[in-house]
């Protein structure tokens, strides 16, 4: 989509150049592929018998990975729901008319956005017990993910609320609605609708971050893969390492690609339905969302 703006429809000379470039490009790609495959094959990593373990129910590997996936999703769902609820509250709070509400909430949001998620999780898992409450790995991971993502989601919701046309708010006040009514019945529904693609995209980020559970020993997908490898290496020698990791990695990629596609679909639909609704529907404020550091990393 981006390409046609930079060059004209190529003429015969340019076509020839592009064709040469394409051939060289194909060769480069094939060369890279060949190197990778040769390296893998040289170590016998491509042996089908090695890969079969991923699908063989007798080995217990598919079951173990499936259960671990469920545990990954559990923590992701808990954190996503909690973070969304808290995120809405924080977003509304940050837009409050009262300074004593606005200032502390802004501080909380900026604090959790500024420090690495892993530090939050470490603080909950290693530092908090020194003061009393002992959190399980699940609780520390879920709470850490919640705290971090609520701050990110708060900024997304805030951008959404601010992007709603000013007239909507004024009209609602003119109808005699109270502040709370304007927020809950007019601004938030429109903001949520508009931010839905970004919210779904944030699920991908959250799902990716559940893998930090590996570091504090929560048995999610990655930790499970690691312990499977250790178990299999102990019994059969080092032959299934790469296969198990690839299996776990592919599970992440599969789910995330599906969610990303869903986000794209929703974005397309909101955009077209906004146009169908006529009027001067402003463009999706995707640019304003990336003001902070929630760039999906």
């Amino acid at each position: 989509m981006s390409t046609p703006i930079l060059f004209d429809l190529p003429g015969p000379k340019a076509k020839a150049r592009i064709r040469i470039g394409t051939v060289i490009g194909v060769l480069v790609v094939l060369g890279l592929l060949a190197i990778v495959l040769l390296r893998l094959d040289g170590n016998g990593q491509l042996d089908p018998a090695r890969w079969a373990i991923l699908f063989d129910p007798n080995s217990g590997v598919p079951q173990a990975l499936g259960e671990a996936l469920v545990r990954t999703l559990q923590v992701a769902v808990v954190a996503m729901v909690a973070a969304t609820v808290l995120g809405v509250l924080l977003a509304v709070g940050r837009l409050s008319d009262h300074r004593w509400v606005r200032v502390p909430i802004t501080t909380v949001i900026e604090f959790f956005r500024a420090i690495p998620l892993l530090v939050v999780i470490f603080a909950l898992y290693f530092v908090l017990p020194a003061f009393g409450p002992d959190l399980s790995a699940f609780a520390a991971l879920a709470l850490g993910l919640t705290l971090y993502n609520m701050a990110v989601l708060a900024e997304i919701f805030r951008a959404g609320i601010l992007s709603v046309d000013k007239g909507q708010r004024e009209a609602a006040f003119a109808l005699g609605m109270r502040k709370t009514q304007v927020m809950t019945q007019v601004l938030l529904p429109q903001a949520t609708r508009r931010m839905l693609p970004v919210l779904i995209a944030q699920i991908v980020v959250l799902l990716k971050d559940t893998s930090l559970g590996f570091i504090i020993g929560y048995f999610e997908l990655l930790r499970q893969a690691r312990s499977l490898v250790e178990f299999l290496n102990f019994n059969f020698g080092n032959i299934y390492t790469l296969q198990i990791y690839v299996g776990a990695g592919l599970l992440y990629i599969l789910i995330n690609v599906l969610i990303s596609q869903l986000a794209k679909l929703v974005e397309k639909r909101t955009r077209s339905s906004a146009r169908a609704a006529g009027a001067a529907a402003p463009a999706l404020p995707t640019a304003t969302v990336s003001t902070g550091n929630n760039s999906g990393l």
Partner: protein
Amino acid sequence: MQFFVDNFDTLLRAFLTTLSLSLLAGVLALVLGTLLAAMRVSPILPLRGLATFYVELFRNTPLTVVFFFVIFGLPQIDTVVSFFPGAVIAVGAYTAAFVAEAIRSGINSVNPGQAEAARALGLGFGQSLREVVLPQAFRTVVPPLGSVFIAMVKNTSIAAGFSVTELSSTLPRLVNADAGALLLVLLGVVVGYMIITLPMAFAVNRLERRVAILR
């Protein structure tokens, strides 16, 4: 307090590890990301496909998994990398995908009329890219690229799970300290990250304002 003073050296060294990890990975990500972005807008289909594959692959993979493949996966094909270079490669390769996306969206955000006008004036591909499109793209790219790199600094913390003694790893290492001392260490870690990220955010803001143009 005494505990904190005793371990200040550990913290400082950890901070320097985080800093050098960020710098090296940042350079790698910038170079690789720019290359990928150029490939994605080029007219050559296989290069475009390769870059798209790379970006989509890394954007949908957790950084921890990337670490896994670099640290535990590469040895399976006889390429052993030690922990610190491995962390640089993992963070750099992962961030490159996001850098490429930021730069590409910057190029896309330039009004097609600009490129058309440049071509109508008789500028070639290279000239219109160099003189018209890229200078404008660079301006829109500054804020998203800035947040990518700030997020990258925070992401270097994942190296703690892979035996790199960077800033976050001081927490589990000093976990046996008493409550007050541990809290001080946590504070030190947080401040350490902020020493890197806050000036970055400030610089991005300044740069954004300096190169801003009214459209």
